[in-house]
């Protein structure tokens, strides 16, 4: 009885992490993502927001990288490094909140559509089909145009435009899970529908959702930058990668670093999330278990 403590607790998620750790690209993606999150959290300790990212000093505008400003200065003489560091905050925050919003709404809508089927399914999916018919960025532009360009509106707009893909994926997943015997078994012990959905169906449908979260984060961040680039996202002077790109495009010939560094930041961030997402997909795929 007492010497039995050796049998290790091996959960499904433990196995997934182990498989993920074997995938080098995914680990690289994961490290970059974690690094970005740390940078976003510690942005105020790395460089001062007011003095370096907002304060304009025209005397030193459009300078290339120097020892004082390691990534140079922009068209108003603001430190590029500070602006990129603080810009990560907006991108990650909006991307995260929008994705979470989409995930929660998608979970609720997709799982009820898949579980109950019939008329509920019809109603939910047809409404989502209408949303699906409009390209994501266009829908976001419309919503931002209608509700204004605050950070909150941007989150809601991007979140809502990501809901259909989450719910579609979850619905198909739920439909395969709900026909399994343990769902019938759960019903046979007297569990309520809501209980079955939350404790049996959703945890078993979650793996593609996790992959989707990672991929969606990337596309949301790209959307924020796109919206800011055309002036519908974050309004200046708040540092944001997309609006930095947009501001720098006038000086592309003689100060290419103003567009290059924010562009690199966007690229690396999206690459990292996509690498992580790909790795998660492989790690969560039961067919690849070895």
């Amino acid at each position, binding site marked *: *009885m007492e010497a*039995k403590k050796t*049998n290790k*607790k*091996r*959960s*499904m998620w433990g196995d997934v992490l182990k498989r993920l750790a074997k995938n080098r690209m995914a680990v690289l993606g994961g490290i970059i993502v974690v690094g970005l999150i740390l940078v976003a959290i510690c942005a105020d300790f790395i460089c001062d927001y007011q003095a370096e990212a907002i304060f304009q000093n025209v005397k030193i505008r459009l300078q290339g990288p120097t020892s004082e400003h390691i990534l140079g200065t922009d068209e108003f003489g603001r430190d590029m490094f500070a602006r990129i560091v603080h810009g990560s905050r907006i991108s990650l925050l909006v991307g995260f909140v929008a994705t979470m919003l989409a995930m929660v709404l998608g979970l609720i809508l997709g799982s009820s559509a898949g579980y109950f089927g019939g008329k509920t399914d019809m109603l939910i999916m047809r409404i989502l089909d209408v949303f699906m018919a409009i390209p994501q960025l266009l829908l976001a532009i419309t919503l931002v145009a209608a509700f204004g360009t605050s950070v909150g509106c941007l989150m809601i707009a991007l979140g809502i435009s990501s809901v259909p893909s989450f719910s579609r994926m979850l619905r198909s997943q739920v439909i395969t899970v709900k026909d*399994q*015997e*343990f769902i*019938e*078994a*759960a*019903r*046979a*012990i*007297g*569990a*309520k529908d809501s*209980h079955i959905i939350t*404790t*049996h169906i959703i*945890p*078993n449908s979650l793996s593609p959702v996790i992959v989707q979260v990672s991929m969606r984060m990337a596309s949301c961040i790209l959307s924020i930058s796109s919206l800011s680039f055309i002036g519908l996202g974050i309004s200046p002077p708040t540092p944001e990668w997309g609006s930095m790109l947009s501001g720098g495009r006038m000086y592309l010939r003689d100060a290419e670093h103003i567009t290059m560094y924010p562009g690199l930041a966007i690229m690396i961030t999206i690459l990292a999330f996509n690498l992580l997402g790909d790795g998660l997909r492989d790690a969560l795929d039961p067919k690849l278990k070895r």
Partner: protein
Amino acid sequence: MENKYLLDMKDVVIHYETDEGIVEAVNGIDIQLAEGKTLGLVGETGCGKTTTALSILRLVPDPPGKVKSGKIILDGVDIMAASEKEMREIRGNVVSMIFQDPMTSLNPVLTVGDQIAEVVAIHNKDMKKEDTIKRAMEMLEVVGIPGERHTEYPHQFSGGMKQRVVIAIALACSPKLLIADEPTTALDVTIQAQVLELMNNLKSQFKTATIMITHDLGIVAETCDEVAIMYAGSIVEKGNLEDVFNNTMHPYTEGLFNSLPDVENRAAKLKPIPGLMPDPTKLPKGCAFAPRCQYATEQCKTEKPALVKYSDTHYAACLAYQDKNFKLKGWGK
């Protein structure tokens, strides 16, 4: 009369209404089961055993399944008239079910302890979380698994152990009726014997009435008090073990016994019942077994036999017995 039986099913008819036609899965079944008794429900694949069992829990998938008529009284409650809320209280608490395949009837992402605790928590709303886990550990010990393994996941258990966990879940709330739907079909023979022995012990320990659904007559002989033989959605013969095994009356039952390998004469060829079960979307007008029956007469093709009482416990549905001198050739010959 009402409270004489724990389970009283009367003339239950269940159809599956699909686009291709109406599948007559269960055609007028009567089952009476007293408390603490075990009934073996025997029949070949697709004869409506599982549908019958699901109707007791009112879990026949709808659509396409429809309970057309009949009455099911379980522990004094009319199952057909109960509300969904009442049904949820009955399921798992008064009656619970063991499913065929232990590999798929456990949720892969929950620990086995949590899954046992789940039933306990559903039916004892005011019980604390720790107490439900404690109960889960007790149940694991009861089915012969060390209690501390409750933090493990189903994939860490073997097939036989998973089936033990399923049994623990089914018995966690000490139900009055346990429905076991081919509980050993997915297991290999040595494990089958262990699981059956465990079920027998637990049955006497918890005084649970059981409906054992199986197609294995050996299991019936070992575990059951009464037997009902089903064919194409109807009961063709029912009685206690002695009646059905030693005084076999229905030709189909005889055919089942004949299909068993003969232990004394191993070289003997198996004698399967010729033909196939009739298509349940178009059952023959007369006796459903007539096309395969060696005793069938013209009358069998047009007239449906009723279940006739031949002794206090023994019933059979066969027209041949209208001739008082009729006897089966006897099995094993």
